[in-house]
């Protein structure tokens, strides 16, 4: 007498709801028990005791974006590899292992090209890429 199969997704929802409930409950307790004496000095952003200068929402560095960019491409490639990887054993037992390997390797080789390109062009360096490009131009 098995329950309906789809209920397998129920724990996921229950855990998410529990996380939110825990936050709300903890927050409620804290509101109930914690003192509440706000002052301007307390709610100033911490800047080592100095008066904060300007808003923090202006500092940026393009390298963070470049890292995110390389990440998303690799992320998508690994997502596409997952279903193929999970049937690789099955294909191998069916005697089609070489074919699967060929497809898999040709997919990965393009991935390797991508990382090799980024490495060569210095996108994987955190600090030196700007200096390296400067050095190249002065030569």
């Amino acid at each position: 007498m098995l329950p309906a199969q789809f209920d397998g997704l129920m724990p996921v929802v229950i855990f998410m709801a529990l996380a939110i409930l825990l936050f709300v409950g903890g927050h409620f307790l804290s509101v109930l028990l914690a003192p509440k004496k706000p002052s301007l000095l307390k709610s100033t952003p911490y800047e080592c005791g100095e008066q904060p200068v300007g808003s923090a929402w202006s500092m940026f560095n393009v390298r963070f974006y470049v890292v995110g960019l390389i990440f998303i491409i690799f992320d998508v490639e690994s997502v596409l590899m997952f279903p193929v990887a999970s049937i690789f054993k099955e294909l191998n037992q069916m005697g089609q292992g070489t074919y699967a390997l060929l497809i898999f390797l040709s997919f990965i080789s393009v991935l390797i090209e991508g990382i090799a390109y980024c490495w060569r062009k210095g996108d994987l360096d955190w600090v030196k890429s700007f200096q390296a490009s400067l050095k190249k131009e002065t030569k």
Partner: protein
Amino acid sequence: MMSLASYLIISLVLFVVGLVVMIARKNIVAILLGIELILNAAALNFVAYSRYVTNNLDGHIFSLFIIVVAAAEAAVGLAIVIRFFQIKETIHIDEATQLRN
């Protein structure tokens, strides 16, 4: 209640909101946000049809590739936005009037 029509209505709302976001916003990032909504609407339609009409997995494959293309599009689009911001110091869409500087 769970039928093809309800999924199509949700997808319709996603599409229309995406279109309105694309038209109404003047920030390029917000326009890309609208494009993501539209692509999601399309992918949702594919999966809904593949369950309720064709009953095979071609729709799943199609929405998988839609997600892949959306990721690539977001990467390139946002790179263009950031480069544009470095040159023009703004990302107002009306400032983008020249093909080359």
